[in-house]
């Protein structure tokens, strides 16, 4: 009776307190004003969430800690059953789970011992990793140490409780305590009386229950919040790898804030992202900005935005939206926001599917469109896009000059075509990339593909404008391009630029442009597979391939460019240490191509060093911006004489000529 009363009071306080804090967190979530994408495809969500949560798929991508986490996760699920029984029986002695039958109950008891040991192993490895191995991107965290202490003590208290239960009460199922009973025989050696042992059982039971309740109070303010948030966040994740940016509706007159000036301008899904972060540092480990000493770390930006949200919580909950402080603060600075190359290495690595770039893009949109605050060198880029439909300072009337004398029809000449060649600004204006386009044209002609270009009717897709945050400019370019493409009823498009590819394929849909868009790697891979292209010439003994972020992580195209290279006779494709989804960005994405890089080492040079490490005399690229960045890198490393950067189209051109 005394125990029941005590438990009701203690548990009431503990659950009351943590319930109150969870309710606040939930209200905060609901106060977020930014628009949230629609979450359809329920069946698919249930399946992937099951695999990712119960199967721990994403967590297991890092095998060692993944296994440890899986042990802890599964252990806790099972042990919670025992804890529930313990709570029930403390309320009313008769509420044991024995009603499930003797065999099942014995199994439950057995499982408690088994999973306690299981979890303990997991925790020991985690503690070893955190305190001894100390991987760089994990950092030091009191919160994490507290959690390890809490969970470790919970497990130890279970063993002690079970052992003294065996000694003090001699339950009928004592043999199912297949670990605790051995501990019991050790403690038996202390020679305590049965009453004392029973007393110790009660003591450790209370110790365990207190730890559980204490932990319940601790969780809402800790990174351990992920045990509640990460599940829903996983179920609500962006289901496809490929994604476009959120489209703003400028026709909506109620919309007066573009992008996020304050934390509350983000969406509730963004807040759920913040709640879900486990501070594991996987994102940071792969971030090209962080790895070249920029102030941006994707892990920190999530933690810092969470701090901003918490610091403003009273104002937000009191409805004082006006007084909420700015999203850009002492931690999340302008430099942090502009350092991102939007490579999505962070998002792809994150075990709980946090989408960092959404928040960075929203912050940029506010800076650019509401405050006109961005690196000065970007202004002429915007102006060029506005007046000439290209980020470079060239006239729109010169856009098709590269194709003079090549005999490529324009759509205006009304040819019958299989596919439209989308040239892009780099292919049209940049000297190095014009040659790439010429090579690709040779390849297309050799494979007898009927194609045409838009000529001077083509305009910049607006990719860079959008990534930098100038959604308004992006949309005006997108609308003109969609109009042009739809006027010619274009269905199939091929392009050598992953940025154009991503924009045309994933983003023009929102403006009424739905096309079958192929990157030239996919297109050439198909031509080779169907025998229309026969690479016969040797090009180089060794080639290494650099993954473009907008082809790989944004669109999941990793193998096609590799198959194009492998189709060349007698070539060895050597991979860099970081490749495919772990590949390092060249530094040009997210509009960084158009910004100065003044902090830290240069991303392109670091990536070039990784490429040079392979010893391959050819670095293959599949993106005009990667081409520029890597070529500059090779120049910086003074390797122009021994190493060439070539586009896969140039390789295919050389091999089929």
């Amino acid at each position, binding site marked *: 009776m005394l125990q029941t009363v005590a438990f009701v009071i203690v548990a009431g306080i503990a659950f009351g307190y943590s319930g109150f804090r969870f309710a606040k967190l939930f209200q905060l979530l609901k106060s977020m004003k930014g628009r949230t994408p629609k979450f359809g495809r329920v069946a698919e969500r249930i399946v992937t969430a099951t695999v990712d949560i119960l199967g721990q798929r994403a967590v297991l991508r890092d095998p060692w800690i993944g296994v440890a986490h899986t042990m802890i996760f599964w252990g806790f699920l099972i042990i919670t059953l025992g804890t529930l029984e313990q709570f029930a029986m403390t309320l009313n002695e008769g509420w044991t789970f024995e009603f499930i039958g003797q065999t099942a109950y014995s199994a439950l008891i057995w499982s408690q011992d088994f999973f306690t040991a299981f979890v303990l192993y997991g925790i020991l490895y985690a503690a070893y990793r955190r305190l001894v191995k100390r991987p760089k991107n994990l950092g030091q965290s009191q919160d994490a140490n507290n959690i390890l202490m809490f969970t470790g003590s919970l497990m130890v208290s279970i063993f002690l409780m079970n052992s003294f239960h065996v000694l003090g009460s001699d339950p009928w199922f004592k043999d199912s305590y297949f670990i605790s009973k051995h501990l019991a025989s050790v403690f038996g050696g202390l020679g305590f009386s049965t009453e004392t042992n029973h007393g110790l059982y009660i003591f450790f039971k209370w110790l365990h229950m207190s730890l559980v309740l204490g932990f319940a109070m601790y969780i809402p303010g800790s990174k351990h919040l992920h045990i509640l948030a990460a599940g829903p966040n996983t179920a609500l994740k962006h289901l496809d790898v490929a994604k476009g940016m959120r489209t703003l509706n400028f026709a909506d007159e109620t919309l007066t804030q*573009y992008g996020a000036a304050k934390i509350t301008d983000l969406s509730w899904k963004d807040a759920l992202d913040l709640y879900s972060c486990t501070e594991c540092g996987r994102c940071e480990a792969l971030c090209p900005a962080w790895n070249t000493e920029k102030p941006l770390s994707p892990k920190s930006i999530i933690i810092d935005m969470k701090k901003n949200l918490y610091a403003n919580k009273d104002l937000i909950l009191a409805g004082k939206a006006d007084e909420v402080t700015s999203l850009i603060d002492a931690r999340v600075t302008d430099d942090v926001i502009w350092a991102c190359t939007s490579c999505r290495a962070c998002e792809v690595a994150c075990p709980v599917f946090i989408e960092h770039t959404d928040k960075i893009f929203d912050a940029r949109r506010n800076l650019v469109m*509401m405050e*006109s605050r961005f690196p000065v060198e970007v202004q002429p880029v915007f102006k060029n896009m506005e*007046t000439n439909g290209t980020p470079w300072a*060239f*006239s729109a009337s010169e856009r098709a000059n590269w194709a003079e004398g090549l005999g490529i029809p324009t759509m205006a000449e009304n040819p019958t075509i299989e596919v439209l060649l989308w040239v892009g600004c780099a292919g049209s204006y940049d000297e190095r990339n014009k040659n790439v386009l010429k090579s690709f044209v040779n390849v297309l002609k050799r494979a007898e593909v009927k194609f045409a270009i838009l000529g001077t009717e083509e305009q910049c897709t607006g990719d860079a404008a959008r990534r930098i945050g100038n959604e*308004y400019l992006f949309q005006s370019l997108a609308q003109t391009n969609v109009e042009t493409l739809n006027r010619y009823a274009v269905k199939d498009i091929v392009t050598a630029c992953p940025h154009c590819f991503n924009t045309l394929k994933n983003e023009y849909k929102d403006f009424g442009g739905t096309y079958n868009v192929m990157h030239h790697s996919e297109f050439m891979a198909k031509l080779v597979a169907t025998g229309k292209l026969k690479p016969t010439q040797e090009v180089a003994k060794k080639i290494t391939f650099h993954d473009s972020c907008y082809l790989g992580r944004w669109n999941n195209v990793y193998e096609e460019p590799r198959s194009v290279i492998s189709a060349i006779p007698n070539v060895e494709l050597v991979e860099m240490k970081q490749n495919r989804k772990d590949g390092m960005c060249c530094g040009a994405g997210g509009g960084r191509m158009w910004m100065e890089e003044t902090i830290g080492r240069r991303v392109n040079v670091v990536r070039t060093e990784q490429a040079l490490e392979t010893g391959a005399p050819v670095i293959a690229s599949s993106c005009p911006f990667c081409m520029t960045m890597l070529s500059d890198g090779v120049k910086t490393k003074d390797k122009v004489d021994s190493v060439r950067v070539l586009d896969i189209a140039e390789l295919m051109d050389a091999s089929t000529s």
Partner: protein
Amino acid sequence: MNLYVCIKRVPDTEMKVKLKADNSGVDLAGVKTILSPYDEFAVEEALRVKEKNAGSTVTAITAGPAEAIEVLRTALAMGCDNAIHIELADGSDSNMAAKAIAECLKKEAPADLIYFGKEAIDDGAAMVPQMVAARMGIPSVTIVTGIEYSGATIKCKREIEGGSSETVEVTLPTVIAASKGLNEPRYATLPNIMKAKKKEVKAIKASDLGVAASDQKVKLSNFQMPPPKAAGKKIEGDAAAQAKALVQLLHTEAKVV
């Protein structure tokens, strides 16, 4: 303070120049147009002064054909309060533009500062600012790269020959012709772009300001493209032979030595 900015719509800097069939001028069909870059410095300067002096207004003025209104929208989007479009036919000369602007300004609230770009990048005449100042009987400072404001007198740094500069002190009201270096023009924010679309632009006919055909002092005719650049010549041989060949060529072909 009453601040005015006089601006001009010009072809984009990247345009490929083509002449009209009769050589009477540059063919502007299909050419993108912009706010003349030096005028951007003028607009920016006026806006900064306004931001430092509460209660000021900035009025943008342009004189030109119907399409010229585009640059007024650009100026409004940057933050100007009002806009006046003086309807003046294409092909009018600097004198007509200056007369139109000066007469217009005389009718508006008395100006404290009138900003211009140092020249429009199409004809590069660099005459209107001074002509307006003369007609209004106020000083003008041209090619200004820096201004120190202090009440009724201002100090203007202006570029002079040989890459050096001088500082001129001048009493308001005055005309300022802005040059590169004066400031970094802003990029319009989206709310301002949206607002600019809806703002009213006051239209005045040049003829109502007394501008007549007889005011035209200059008529341009017979435009010609510059001769295409001849290909360069590479001089071969050892240093002595090269030097000899070079002197020879400078003497016989370039006729400079």
